[in-house]
């Protein structure tokens, strides 16, 4: 089981802040492909990956990062702290 977290407009487009998924996806990109195939809302949220960031187990990483052993994947737009 993998926990998916969505923040900011990604959360708004998908319509929920978190969910648990059963997946065999090897990488973040594979996981995104699965989600897009599932529903229009995901397709909309993941339409432009250049405007998205991903963290695996709370560490920023790239879309080709492997998911083996991961427990938590978070998707969000570029951060605007400070």
């Amino acid at each position, binding site marked *: 089981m993998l926990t998916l*977290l969505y*923040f*900011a*407009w990604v*959360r708004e487009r998908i319509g929920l802040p978190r969910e648990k998924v059963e997946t065999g996806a090897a990488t973040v990109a594979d996981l995104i492909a699965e989600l897009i195939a599932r529903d229009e809302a995901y397709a909309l949220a993941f339409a432009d990956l250049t405007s998205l960031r991903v*963290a695996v187990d*709370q*560490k*920023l990483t790239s879309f080709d990062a492997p998911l083996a052993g991961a427990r938590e994947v*978070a998707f*969000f*737009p*570029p*951060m*605007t*702290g*400070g």
Partner: protein
Amino acid sequence: MLRVQAEPFDAGAEVNAFTAGATGAGAVVSFTGIVRGDGGLRALEIEHYPGMTESAIAAIIAEARARWELTDVLVIHRYGLLELGAPIMMVATAARHRVAAFQAAEFLMDYLKSRAPFWKKEVGGDWVKAKAEDEDALDRW
């Protein structure tokens, strides 16, 4: 020191407490970010990623301490609903000399802008867009 909180804070009182605790420092630099009333903005809503927020800020502080000789470092960042004119966050650095204190404070700010998981939304408006210049600012470190 690092605090992530919804409550407002008193920047002046924080600067004084920080300075009092920074024994041996000759230079204290502070930065406070404040909600500006641009284009009719009435309030800001800040979302964050509990857990990652703390670890990301701790990593940024550790990096600053590795790069500069610092007596002490403080980061406070708020989330939730922030009124116009309210403090959003602050950074304070203490060092023997001014150059290290200034550089570390700017480094912390640049990284907090683009590498700490906070997202600002204008209440009744849109999500604040990340600026390319904020990403570019990281290149100098």
